[in-house]
C-alpha cells in the first residue's frame, strides 16, 4: 500500500514523535502542575515567576518554527553548548540526525502538552490534596496518589496532542534534520517530493496519511479532554 520510502518516512515520524513525547512528559507534568497551582497565590514574587514561566513555555507556540530551528541548530550543533557536550563526551552527533528532529518536535509541542496538563491539574480539587496531606501523606505522596491519577485523562490528551504536533513539525525540523533521502519525516518527504518533477502527483498518499493521523489524534484528544471535564463537573 505504501512504498518503501513512504514507510521509512512514517517510521521516522513515529520514532521522532514518540521519543519527543516521552522525553518531555516528566518536565511537562512538573511545569503543568507548577503553573496550575501557582496560578492562585497572593505572593507577588510567585505571581511574577508564574507569568515569566507561562510566557517562556508558550514561546515555541508563537515563535516562527524556522526561528526555533535556527536557535536549535546553534544550540545542538557540534560547536553549540549542548552539541559540543554530546559530541566530545559521548561521540554522538545531534544535528542532521533523528535526535535533533526529536528535540525540535519536543520543543515545538511542549506548550501544547503543558496547556492540557495545566488544565487537567487545575480541575483537580485542591481540597482533595489538602485532605490527603491532612491525613499524613507527604507532598510527593499526595501528588502521585491523588493529583496525578485524577488528572490522567488530561495528561494523556496532552500527550496525544503533542504527538500529533510533533508528527506535523516542519519548519524547525527542516533546519536541523537536513535533506538525506532516507531520513525524512512525513512533512519533509512531502516537501521534497513537491520540489521534484512529477512529485506533486506522487505525494498524495503521504498527504492523505498526514490528514488521517492528525484527525485521529485530535479526535482522541478531544474525547479524553471531555471525559476529564465531565469528571470535574461531577
Amino acid at each position, binding site marked *: 500500500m505504501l512504498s*518503501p520510502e513512504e514507510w*521509512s518516512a512514517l*517510521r*521516522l515520524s*513515529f*520514532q521522532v*514523535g*514518540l*521519543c519527543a*513525547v*516521552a*522525553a518531555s*512528559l516528566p518536565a511537562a507534568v512538573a511545569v503543568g502542575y507548577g503553573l496550575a497551582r501557582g496560578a492562585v497565590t497572593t505572593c507577588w514574587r510567585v505571581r511574577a515567576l508564574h507569568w515569566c514561566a507561562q510566557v517562556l513555555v508558550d514561546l515555541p507556540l508563537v515563535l516562527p518554527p524556522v526561528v526555533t530551528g535556527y536557535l536549535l*541548530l546553534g544550540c545542538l*550543533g*557540534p*560547536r553549540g553548548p549542548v*552539541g559540543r557536550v554530546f559530541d566530545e563526551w559521548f561521540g554522538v*552527533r545531534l*544535528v*542532521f540526525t*533523528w535526535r535533533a528532529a526529536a528535540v525540535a518536535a519536543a520543543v515545538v509541542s511542549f506548550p501544547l502538552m503543558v496547556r492540557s496538563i495545566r488544565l487537567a491539574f487545575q480541575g483537580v480539587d485542591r481540597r482533595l490534596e489538602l485532605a490527603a496531606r491532612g491525613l499524613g501523606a507527604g507532598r510527593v505522596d499526595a501528588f502521585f496518589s491523588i493529583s496525578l491519577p485524577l488528572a*490522567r485523562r488530561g495528561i*494523556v490528551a496532552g*500527550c496525544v496532542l503533542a504527538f500529533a504536533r510533533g508528527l506535523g513539525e516542519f519548519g524547525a525540523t527542516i533546519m536541523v534534520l*537536513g*535533506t*538525506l*533521502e*532516507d*531520513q525524512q519525516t512525513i512533512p519533509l518527504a512531502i516537501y521534497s517530493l*513537491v*520540489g*521534484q*518533477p*512529477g*512529485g*506533486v502527483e506522487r505525494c498524495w498518499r503521504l498527504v492523505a496519511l498526514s490528514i488521517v493521523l492528525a484527525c485521529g489524534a485530535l479526535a482522541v484528544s478531544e474525547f479524553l479532554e471531555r471525559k476529564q471535564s465531565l469528571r470535574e463537573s461531577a
Partner: protein
Amino acid sequence: MRGRNLGVGLLAAMLAAGCGARNEPGLAPAETPPTKTLIVFAAASTREALAELNAAFERSHAGVEVRASYSASSTLAQQLAAGAEAQLFLSADEKWAQFIAEKKLAADSRPLLGNRLVLIVPESSKAVVTSPRDLLDDSVGRIAMGDPQAVPVGRYAKQALTKLELWEPLKSKVVGAQDTRQALAFVETASADAGVVYATDAIVSTRVRVAFEFDVELTEPIVYPLVLLEAARDDTTAKALFEFLQSGEAEATFRRHGFTFLPAEK
C-alpha cells in the same frame, strides 16, 4: 478500572517502543546492517546519474551502503558548515566548493562535470520563445530559477541575463526556487511560464521542452567540483568512491545523462 490500566499500559508500550527502536532509519527489518555507510552530498541536478553510480559502487563493494542527499549546493554547503556528516560533496559550482575549503572541511577536490544552461517552457506552452529577448514579452509572466543569490543554477542564470543586459527588466518576473529541480517542477506544472535549468535537467521531465540554450560565453565556466571532505581524509572506502566517480564507468554514465566529463579532457 480495566480501561484505565489498559490505556496506561498501551501508552507505556508505545513510548517504550518509540524510544527502544533507535535503529537508524532507512533499514528494513530483514536486511543485514551494512558494515560501512558513506554519505554523499550532491547537487540536485546529478540525482539520476549519481543514483546509478552509487548503486553500482554498492554492488562492487559488498557491505557498503551509499546514502545521498540531493539539494542545492548552497544548502548542502551550509549544512556541512553547520556540522552535517558526509564523506563526499559534489557541488554545482566552484564557489561552494571554495566555501567548504575555506572552512577547512575539504581534503581534496577535482573538477568533475560540466553542464550547459537552457531555458525551458511548459510542453503545452503557446508562447513563442526562441531567444533571450523574447522573455521580455508579456506572454512570459514568471521565470523560475534557483535562488539567484546562492543556488548555482540561479547564479549562472543571473550572470547570463546580466551579460545580455536583460536582468534589470526581467528581475520582477523571477521566481526563486530552492534548487534546479524545484524550478523544473514549477515549469512542469505551468506555475511558471519559463525556467532556467541545466540541459541535463530538461531531459528528466517530459512535460517541458527546451526553448533555447544559453551561450557558453555568457556565464563563468559551469564546473562541478567533486570534493573529498576532511572527515574522510583517511577513509579508504570514501577515497575508493571518490576515485570511482572519476573513472571510465562513471564517465559513461555521466555522459549518458548529458553531462560533460572533465577528467577525460586532461
